[in-house]
């Protein structure tokens, strides 16, 4: 199988901030790789290096067989990029935006116009086609931006946090659109902060932290490594903590986590946890543990991070602010 995106040893520093520290990745043709990580993990920097927006300090990369550093223009004609912030001109209508992009891909005026109409129809934007895009909702703007990335039908697509900041419904719509694209055989590199998103859309997930890959695998492989669903318990009385901890440990795939106030416990369980949940409830009854709330939830990126690194996924900025706040205290 042909490798459509390949990066090796990508390194980029901004002053003392090490945004990328030797990142390697490969995406085979027709596959989807998700880069999963918190803000400041280096996802956007990686995307910018691969899409020729940024020159890495060290390392090399190839997209669709073209060297990113030696032939950036060649790369640009083979990729479609949709960024974290919808890169559309707010004064132009949806149609005008897409025609402009098509003409800058050198499709020719007539073909650019035809392609703009096709894409507007495909992304359910036909009704809004002749309205300035500043009147669009957040979800519509993202769809327009994604349409912009598809104008030249590039073999490689790069989507940088395509659903960050969208409401649940727009996110769902975006997922449907992306799934359809992948079904059509595009090779896709996607960055996200949501495990669920990576799980739904990607064949392969790479977890990155401080500009390095810390784990890689399919969603199932990652779950096997970091535990599946979580059972979360809120105790009525902190005195029941030890008993609750004992019961949860019987089903847990890893150490049971206890919150600072001693009343909230979280246990990662193997696979789907409904059977385990039942056993925990029975155990609580036996030990007469009273709970205010108990539930099963899917693992999030934070859980994956905690399991892999032993610390919560905090973004750089939040960490810095916290250190500053602690310093001033």
């Amino acid at each position, binding site marked *: 199988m042909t490798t459509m995106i390949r990066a090796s040893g990508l390194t980029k520093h901004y002053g003392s901030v090490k945004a990328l520290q030797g990142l390697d990745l490969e995406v085979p043709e027709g596959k989807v790789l998700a880069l999963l990580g918190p803000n400041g993990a280096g996802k956007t920097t990686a995307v910018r290096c691969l899409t020729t927006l940024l020159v890495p300090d060290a390392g090399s990369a190839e997209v669709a067989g073209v060297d990113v550093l030696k032939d950036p223009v060649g790369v640009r004609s083979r990729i479609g990029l949709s960024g974290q912030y919808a*890169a559309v*001109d707010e004064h132009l209508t949806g149609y005008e935006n897409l025609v402009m*992009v098509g003409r800058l891909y050198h499709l020719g005026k007539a073909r650019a116009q035809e392609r703009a109409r096709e894409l507007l129809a495909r992304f359910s934007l036909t009704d809004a086609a002749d309205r300035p895009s500043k009147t669009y909702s957040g979800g519509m703007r993202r769809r327009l931006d994604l349409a912009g990335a598809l104008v030249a039908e590039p073999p490689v697509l790069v989507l940088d946090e395509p659903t960050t900041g969208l409401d649940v419904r727009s996110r769902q719509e975006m997922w449907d659109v992306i799934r359809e694209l992948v079904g059509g055989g595009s090779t896709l590199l996607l960055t996200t902060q949501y495990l669920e998103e990576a799980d739904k859309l990607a064949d392969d997930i790479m977890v990155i932290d401080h500009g390095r890959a810390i784990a890689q695998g399919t969603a199932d492989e990652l779950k096997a490594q970091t535990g599946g669903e979580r059972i979360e318990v809120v105790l009525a009385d902190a005195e029941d903590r030890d008993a609750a901890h004992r019961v949860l440990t019987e089903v847990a795939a890893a150490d049971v986590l206890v919150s600072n106030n001693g009343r909230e416990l979280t246990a990662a369980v193997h696979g789907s946890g409904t059977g385990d949940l039942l056993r925990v409830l029975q155990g609580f009854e036996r030990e007469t543990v009273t709970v205010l709330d108990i539930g099963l939830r899917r693992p999030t990126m934070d859980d994956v991070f905690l399991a892999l690194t032993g610390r919560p996924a905090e973004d750089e900025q939040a960490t810095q602010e916290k250190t500053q706040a602690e310093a001033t205290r």
Partner: protein
Amino acid sequence: MSTTQALTDGWVVAQRNLIKIKRVPEILVFVLISPIMFVLLFAYVFAGAIDTGGNVDYKEFLIAGIFAQTVVFGATFTGAGLAEDMQKGIIDRFRSLPMSSSAVLVGRTTSDVVYNVLSLIIMALTGLLVGWRIRDGFVDAVAGFALLLVFAYAISWVMAYVGLLVPSVEVINNASFIVIMPLTFVSNAFVPASSFDGLLYTFVTWNPVSTLTQASRELFGNNGNMPVPDTWSMQHPVLYTLIWVGILLAVFGPLSVRQYRRTTSR
């Protein structure tokens, strides 16, 4: 990448910028009102206070200066437009497209020529109303307008470079005010060069805004009997101004393109 490519891509970007004029006509209204205000303010408020030594009617003398000041200020639009593109993220879209890397800059500076043409028309009409006249023939007058536009185009490239460097639109507006205000006021645009002394006089006579003003004043036939300072720059104002145009384009053209290639949205 070929020059033709840069021009066709640049034209696509220029069209995009011009659509904004259509969508937000308020911008244009303000662009056009401020020169009218300047013409009226100087023609009626300061005319009596500024001494032209009886060599020329002040209103006649003034208009070329207002033209020069307005088109030079107009270059701020170039910088502000680019700073806005960076802030809004669309620069990332452009940079990820296989287009010529000078197209965004060519497009922006070109669309700003349109702004300047419109404001020159409005100012000329206002000037005619307050008594300004073209006295030296049509061809010379066209040459005068062309020189104003060419010089403004060169300043646009300076502002393009600044626009790619600054963090926001507000910064560029303030920064350009600090630079352009002294350049246009410490010149012969509003008062005769002879009213300055010493170092200021030297600055005024070699300031390209002065020579631009002097050149268009002479091309419109508005210099009257006003003595021309005895420096090479003021004696050859068209040539001296064009030399500046060449230098600015040669320096800031490549500098801006290089900066554009390195830049990403904020």
